[in-house]
């Protein structure tokens, strides 16, 4: 693995907590790795497992899904739905030979800019250690990538 591998991470951040927390990290001039590319959703409950798979297929090395802390959801319970969906996504990732560590669910509140920075730093270094995501292990890379294509 080359030393200068820079992973690409796609982050789905809920509008009310995590996205605001990321915004706060920005306005507080906190430094965090530029590897995270953020997509704003209104609620982490909007994140379909297919989005995660799509991101991985399109070349992301990791996916971060972040929402409000349990009990703090702006939409009361959207994050609980996410929690269940992400748990169900785990075995599916195993089947595709994707390390579960590449997909991460985090609760980051609007005030937790520091935590946001920590999560991004930690996730970047962890995925750096895992190396680039290689779907289907060389010879049959294409077919599996095909399988991952969302309907």
């Amino acid at each position, binding site marked *: 693995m080359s030393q200068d591998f820079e992973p690409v991470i796609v982050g789905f951040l809920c509008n009310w907590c995590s996205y605001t927390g990321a915004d706060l990290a920005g306005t507080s001039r906190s430094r965090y790795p530029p590897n995270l590319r953020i997509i704003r959703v209104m609620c982490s409950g909007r994140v379909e497992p297919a989005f995660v798979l799509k991101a991985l297929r*399109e070349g992301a090395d990791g996916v971060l899904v972040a929402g409000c802390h349990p009990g703090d959801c702006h939409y009361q319970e959207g994050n609980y*739905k996410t929690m269940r969906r992400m748990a169900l996504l785990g075995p599916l990732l195993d089947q595709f030979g994707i390390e579960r560590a590449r997909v991460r669910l985090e609760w980051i509140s609007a*005030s937790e800019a520091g935590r946001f920075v920590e999560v991004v730093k930690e996730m970047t270094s962890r995925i750096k250690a895992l190396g680039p995501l290689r779907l289907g292990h060389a010879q049959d890379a294409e077919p599996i990538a095909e399988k991952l294509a969302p309907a």
Partner: protein
Amino acid sequence: MADKSVKLTIDGKEIEVEPDIYILEAAERLGIWIPTLCNYRGLTPFGVCRMCTVEVARGTRVRLVTSCNHPVSDGLVVRTNTERVRTARRILVELLCARHGKVGVIKRLAENVGVTKPRFGEGDEPCILCGLCVRACDEMAKANAIGFAQRGTDKIVTTPYHEESETCINCGACAKVCPTGAIYIEGAQELRHDELALGPNAAIAVPTMQAVPNVPRLDADACLHFTTGGCGICATNCPAKAIDYEMQDKEIEVKAGTVVVATGFQVFDPSVAEQYGYGRLPNVITSLEFERLSNAAGPTGGKILLRNGTPPASVAILHCIGSRDEHYHRYCSRVCCMYSLKFAHLVHEKLGARVYQLYIDMRTFGKGYEEFYDRLLKEGALFIRGKGAEVTPGVPGGAEAGKLVVKCEDTLAGVQRRIPVDMVVLSVALEARSDAREVERLFNLCRSEDGFFLEQHPKLAPVETTTDGVFLAGCCQSPKDIPDTVAQGGAAASQALSLILRGETTLSGACAEVNPDLCSGCRVCNELCPYSAISYDAEKKVSAVNESLCKACGTCVAACPSGAIKGKHFTKEQILAEIEGVLR
């Protein structure tokens, strides 16, 4: 009035009253003064001091009666100030003087009725056997802890067998009604001072001068009526008959379209910072307690006093207790520097005492604030740059005996100091209320790291929250002084009004939409929606979204197994394109 009222004449003035009262009360209503020692409104009249003696005439029969327990009746003619009455009262007072002449109440009464030289001498026995305490204990406290014992000249008020009473509830009603101070509660002075911070300490009191509504409030835990079933003095005395013991706490439901959250703050409890001795050393008080002390409507009437009732000769004010402190709150509480300066000014003005200010940085940022700081410097307040490190009691026997010693590092002079003072005021931090979490949940708000509610945007939306129609004002959002609070309150109110006056609200374009052609009617989305915005149309066998209830969270969109729900502005196509975009 159920019964017919009666008409009587008192000192030539006619009055119409209800039939179940006594002459004394009727006279009171006319503003006629009748001396009395053993009468107390709300307690059964006793007629034992005889001071309220008046002359009543019915037809030709004229006689002396005690007005406190002589019922009114139709056509009664009462004279309260005839020579016969005056003579009777003088003799009664002289007789009282024989045993109690040196007691204040009797002395004043003697002057009032014109007895200058009592013929039978002047005794100093404080208990005049008026029986008020006995009746109070029986009727108010329902404790029957005290009563009369023995007869004639040996008669005394005492507990059964002169032993410590088991039924006494320590209510203090006997001491309260005692006209001469013969009964008193030991340590009562100290008790009152302990409660300085708590405000008025009667069971019924107006909580604060600024209370809204400005009416007394009953503390059911302290009230004798609630604890014993007796008393009821306040109801007896209330001319408006406003006291209602049956009243219960009520939950009132208010329908509102907008809400201004102004739940305020609480002060930091400095007893957790043990080095300052709060709660352990008697003359270490918080800034809020000092405020009560110096308040003209406070328990000391605005006098700044030590625990022993004497004024302090020196006061140290310790800034930043609990704020700007890694251990407690990292933020600056913003108001403490200025109120500490005000305290210094008050101590100077009221007592001329020496005032030390122990500060980290003086933050006098507001309009006219720096000028006030300058004025304090000229007034001679002593400013020491360095946070107070510890407060200890002075070593007994030494020069610092009986004082409090404040230790600090004077960072400007570069020396360690020990400052002996009489009183230490801790300028405590303003912190988020302990129940802020519940309020946060209730209105779906956010809180910043320091625990205060988070505004939507620090500059562009300073009073708005992440919930539409809910606004913030005051210290629940961050510590702030009164001018800032008033300004923010005004802003929040006008934001709320602008929504109310419009009478209609604009819905966000983002909302979910069900495509009935694709919907299989599985009703998965119905259960998921936290706002019950999705309903099932049994006739068409499809679900539909109520656009005015939908908040566009997208949970249903993500869950729909047939992909029939579109989350406008966050459609599947849009998000997938976004993913492709960020990974290009």
